[in-house]
């Protein structure tokens, strides 16, 4: 069978674009309105999306308050509470949530995902993050953030403990024999008794083995240890490449590490995050994006541009092109080069450039359903990705455009499923169910 795409939806916040909530017709309160979120997930399920993804942060976002006060990203639901509710109004679509290995406990995390997996009939996925926002530390009794390397070391052990806890009960441990009065077979219960560098966890988990064996393991780290952790543990990677070339390099890098970790590269799907803006013509799509960017307030926009340039841009003429000879600083060579390239390519003024950086500076696919489907097909065939994590520019319209215009085009080309074939997220992703490490079949 030829390769097909996997699609997930990035839903916390519902749009990563900071101007999204001001777009004409957008639901300004979409992040925090259960009715809206319910309708979004049901539309995504009708379009046969693989999963709905709730990112998570353990503090209000660490941007300057002048920018934060204009951001709809400031408040969203706690992922498990929301996904448990959404599990009840959907049947097939996967439910992915972020949980932090730096600020949470393996036993708590194992329980929450095991519960969600049972409640949803095998649709849960755990996005392992080490939490980069330094403000989170201050909500958990620490005055300083835990150092990057140490966070990843802890994450690796955290993963071992959580998966070990999920394997506490054999798949056939719970017998519920009403005649004999025996509910489960104690021979089929494993006490983990983990004693490691970071954690001491006795176990067993007090929840039966998840429907999927283990909920699907997701990773989004981009650093060396992040990519290594992904190669060793992840089944799904949310990536953030800039373009086709960097995506191909990242894809080869992560998959290339897998054999050494004893894993088959086919058992990992890499889905870059991409904002998708659809128009009836490419020009119309570009105009929508330009309008969306224009809704980003200049004060917060210019701050973001200054960070990207490594140089204070607030004195520049907003309506002129970027001045020549911006001093080069050591700290931001690559960032600066990227800004200059973008300014040059799209002939943007300082204001437009700033609004791009203050709005959403990541990968974007902008065009008609046909041109975007062409691009997705190229990415798939050139081993740049196994699909995409869709970021919507504004909602509901930006989401409707994807589910009603782009998905049918992909289906027509045989690039995306017309119906779900299985009922668990593992089945949607073509991943096998992990064997129980203590009770091999």
């Amino acid at each position: 069978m030829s390769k097909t795409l996997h699609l997930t939806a990035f839903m916390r916040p519902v749009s990563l674009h900071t101007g999204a909530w001001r777009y004409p017709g957008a639901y300004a309160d979409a992040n925090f309105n259960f009715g809206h979120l319910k309708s979004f997930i049901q539309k995504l399920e009708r379009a046969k999306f693989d999963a709905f993804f709730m990112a998570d942060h353990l503090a209000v976002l660490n941007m300057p308050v002048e920018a934060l006060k204009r951001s709809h990203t400031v408040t969203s639901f706690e992922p498990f509470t929301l996904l448990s509710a959404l599990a009840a109004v959907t049947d097939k679509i996967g439910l992915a949530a972020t949980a932090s290995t730096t600020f949470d406990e393996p036993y708590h995390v194992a329980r929450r995902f095991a519960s969600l997996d049972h409640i949803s009939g095998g649709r849960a996925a755990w996005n392992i993050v080490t939490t980069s926002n330094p403000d989170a530390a201050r909500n958990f009794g620490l005055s300083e953030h835990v150092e990057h390397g140490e966070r990843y070391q802890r994450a690796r052990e955290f993963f071992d403990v959580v998966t070990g806890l999920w394997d506490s009960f054999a798949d056939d441990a719970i017998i519920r024999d009403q005649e004999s009065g025996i509910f489960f077979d104690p021979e089929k219960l494993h006490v983990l008794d983990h004693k490691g560098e970071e954690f001491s966890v006795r176990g067993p988990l007090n929840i039966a083995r998840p429907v999927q064996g283990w909920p699907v393991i997701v990773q989004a780290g981009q650093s060396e240890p992040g990519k290594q952790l992904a190669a060793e543990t992840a089944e799904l990677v949310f990536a953030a490449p800039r373009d086709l070339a960097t995506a191909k390099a990242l894809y080869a890098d992560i998959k290339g590490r897998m054999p050494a970790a004893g894993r088959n590269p086919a058992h990992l799907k890499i889905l870059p995050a991409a904002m998708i803006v659809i128009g009836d013509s490419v020009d119309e799509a570009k105009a929508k994006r330009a309008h969306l960017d224009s809704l980003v307030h200049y004060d917060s926009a210019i701050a973001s541009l200054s960070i990207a340039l490594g140089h204070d841009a607030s004195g520049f003429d907003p309506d002129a092109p970027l001045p020549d000879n911006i001093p080069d600083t050591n700290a931001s060579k690559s960032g600066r080069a990227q800004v200059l390239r973008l300014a040059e390519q799209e002939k943007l003024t300082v204001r437009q450039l700033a609004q791009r950086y203050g709005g959403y500076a990541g990968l974007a696919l902008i065009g008609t359903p046909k041109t975007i489907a062409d691009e997705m097909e190229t990415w798939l065939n050139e081993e740049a990705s196994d699909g995409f994590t869709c970021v919507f520019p504004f909602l509901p319209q930006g989401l409707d455009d994807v589910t009603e215009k782009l998905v049918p085009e992909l289906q027509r080309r045989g690039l995306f499923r017309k119906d779900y074939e299985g009922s668990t997220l593992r089945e949607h992703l073509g991943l096998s169910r992990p064997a129980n490490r203590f009770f091999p079949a």
Partner: protein
Amino acid sequence: MDYGRIGSCCKIAHRCRSLVNFTVSPRAIEFLDVAKKLWASWDPRREGEVPPDRFWDASSARTIDHEGQFFHVRGPLNVPRSPQGHPVIAQAGASEGGIELAARHGEIIYCNILSRPAGQAFTKKVKGKAIEVGRDPFAIRIVPGLVAIIGETREEALRKHELFSGTGSEDGLLARFAKENGIDPATFDPDAVLEAERFVPDQNRQWAVGMGLGLSDLLTHEKLTARQAVRRSEGHHRLVLGTPEEVADQIIDLWQDGTVDGYTLQPPRAPDDIEEFVEKVVPILQDRGVYPREYEGRTIRDRYPFPTRIEQDWRDRTDRNERCPLQGSLPVSI
């Protein structure tokens, strides 16, 4: 998200550490202090004043900068204030530490109350302590567990009790009682009056102290034989047995003089006993005007009309008319 139907149950975890309850309590109390500060870290009065190009007013959320004995938390929460202000705080645990926590933070108090005098003593203790720490005692609702076993006749209910308990007969119930309380079967006289002191649990033990207290409190206030005592509780909670009318009478009995504010139903078997209670007992309670026919209000807080201002003089509002109708909490089993 669920528009404020949530209650938050804080029980001191039974930790496998060398901690006794009274040393766990300060952490639990501070934990709730922090949670309440976080829930209050957004100022709802400022909502609606936000200019159209701003998503929120930054000054409406503030850091809490809590620096305590157990916790250091900066805040604010990244979730704004909920429809109820904060979830209703439910608390269970009747050890000294548990009562302290109930008095400081509890709103709905789960407990095991087996008789009127025991209930009045418990209520006085919790509400008295609440007054000491400056809280309005009307903001605290005592909702003990209740096991209802319903029959066509009282005899049928007795047989059901024996069946559901797994003991099979009255003798079986008595044998279980002797075993649970470490009484030598050879010297056990089921018709001798029991001595309360014999049943006082050790305050410092790590397992739930409050559960054992129910029986010793009952025996302190009433002279009972083992044969009578086994029909007064099931799973440490008050047992009410009989026809639907008799069960309703017993439910209303402890409520009408304010000994309890409501109950936490603990049906022996789900779903059958839940359905039976709903179909046979609830209509009687409704006919007698002590239980609502419709949900009043949207949030769980609306159903327990707690006072919102602590300064209000609670004494004026404890007269009969102001008391809230009987509350049927969701069935929970602990």
